[in-house]
């Protein structure tokens, strides 16, 4: 039963991701226009479209559901308040992701009662639980091997997890990833390459026998 649910979720995710891509290409421009004409429904559509994405991203930094929801609300409210200048925003999705990250990290910081410091951009957590159910089902590897795989995957650094997340879940390009993580494009490429190398080594022979 549990497995069926996971498969359903994955199908849903795939449908959702496809929808996001197609929608965003066609409608982003029109929405920005409608936003500037004070159309609240345009704002609502943007939220519907990106909510899952933003929530998911925010949940990488904290498990506090209430805090995440509040932050996303605030992000959209300030987005609405700045709608006059919306035309300067090239990708609303990227803008919203960045705003959400900043808002969540700031709230976490405030909560922990520390003074603002530069360490904010580096010292945040990044929760990333690899899901092994799908490979167990689809590739029929043994559960023991899958658990070993998950353990190894979880040894990736926070930065490596974040970069994988941004590239493979949020479909951001290297330039956007660089900006979100406050590193250079070259570093993005290097970090990505190293991470993939690590994953590649991991897979070689050991886990899957065909």
């Amino acid at each position, binding site marked *: 039963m549990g497995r069926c649910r996971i498969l359903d979720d994955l199908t849903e995710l795939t449908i959702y991701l496809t929808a996001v891509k197609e929608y965003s290409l066609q409608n982003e421009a029109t929405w920005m226009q409608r936003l500037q004409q004070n159309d*609240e429904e345009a704002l609502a559509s943007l939220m519907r479209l990106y909510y899952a994405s933003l929530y998911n991203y925010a949940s990488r930094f904290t498990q506090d559901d209430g805090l995440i929801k509040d932050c996303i609300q605030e992000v959209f409210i300030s987005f*609405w308040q700045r709608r006059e200048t919306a035309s300067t925003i090239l990708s609303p999705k990227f803008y919203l992701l960045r705003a959400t990250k900043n808002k969540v990290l700031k709230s976490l910081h405030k909560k922990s009662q520390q003074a603002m410091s530069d360490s904010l951009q580096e010292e945040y957590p990044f929760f990333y639980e690899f899901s092994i159910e799908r490979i167990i089902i689809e*590739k029929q590897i043994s559960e023991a091997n899958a658990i070993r795989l998950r353990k190894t995957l979880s040894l990736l650094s926070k930065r490596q997890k974040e970069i994988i997340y941004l590239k*493979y879940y949020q479909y951001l390009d290297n330039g956007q990833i660089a900006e979100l993580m406050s590193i250079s494009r070259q570093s993005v490429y290097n970090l990505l390459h190293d991470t993939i190398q690590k*994953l590649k080594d991991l897979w070689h022979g050991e886990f899957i026998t065909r």
Partner: protein
Amino acid sequence: MYTTSCGMKDFRLFDISDFVMDEDFIRWVYENRKEDNDFWNNWLAKHPQKNMAVAEARRILESIEMDQKTISKTEVDGQVQRLLQTITEQEHSNYPVAQIHTIRSSRKWWYAAASVVVFATAITFFYFLSNRGAKASEFAYIKQVSSRHLIENVNTSEKAITVKLPDGSTVELAANSRISYANDFDSSSTRDVYLSGEAFFNVTKNPSRPFRVYANEIVSKVVGTSFSVRSFEQDTVIQVTVRTGKVSVYSQMKAKNNDNSFKHGEIMVMPNQQLLYQKEDESFQKVLLKDPIMTEPMAAVGDRGNEDVPITTVFKNLSEAYEINIVFDAELLKHCTINAPGIKNESFYEKLDLICKAIGARYEIIDGQIIIQSNGCQPN
């Protein structure tokens, strides 16, 4: 953007890492689109030496699948409503609120609440303040009404009257009650009406334009449903009773607090439930109606009508017929059965009594739900 055989990209030169980082490749693995499948199967047939690299790249991408919480559409819709509401409130709060600020100074939430109310409703504005013993001039009331271009219906007769709203929704307005609403609802993203007194609403469905009833301190919000609200100025309790559909209710007091952290709770009221708002301590209480009505016929249990059927199925059918949540421990009740072909015409509570008696269980009503308490049954 996607280049096939002759684009800028030459997949023949790709190693595993290149594939893993390539957006077209990623899309093929994650989205499984037909056009991508066609392209890659075709390409692999032409370049069989790349089969291994492609297979490994696929495995890597598949292995970084991640656990994530799925977010239901209802949850997203709830958040969208919350956003729209905040925005509407913020924009209306540009209306003059200066005179309000002198009324009371001891409790900080009052400012927030007052500014919400002053935009929200001319009528509520007036009664609200007089409830609190404040002096609101008749002039301010008229000014608020005229600035919002509201139509007002006042029922001074002894009997209820029917008011038809611009969107086709109907309102049974009780005696000594009044209601105000905009000339048409097209210019706003919500359908707002302001009530003083009691009314039964039958709201036409329009998911993109929520219907909101402002009744003194509380707001009831629906998409399309029938329900009633009772909120006379002298009442100490505001009542919201739901006949069909779902109604979400929130307190204007709590809708905005000082730190702007939006921690107000919306309470969902289901069919056959009644929500009571105590003005005194600003608290909500959910109760079940004395005689719940079925929203759809109860599904029959058992084929031949004279056999033992699992009690859990009976509870499920009962719960669906009345849209009343029945909470029970399915594991504990798994051996409990009932042979009761006759359950049909009894009232909700009679049915519940019959069923509980048959298995030696008791029930409690907590927060508008039925909680079944039982020690379980012995397996046959």
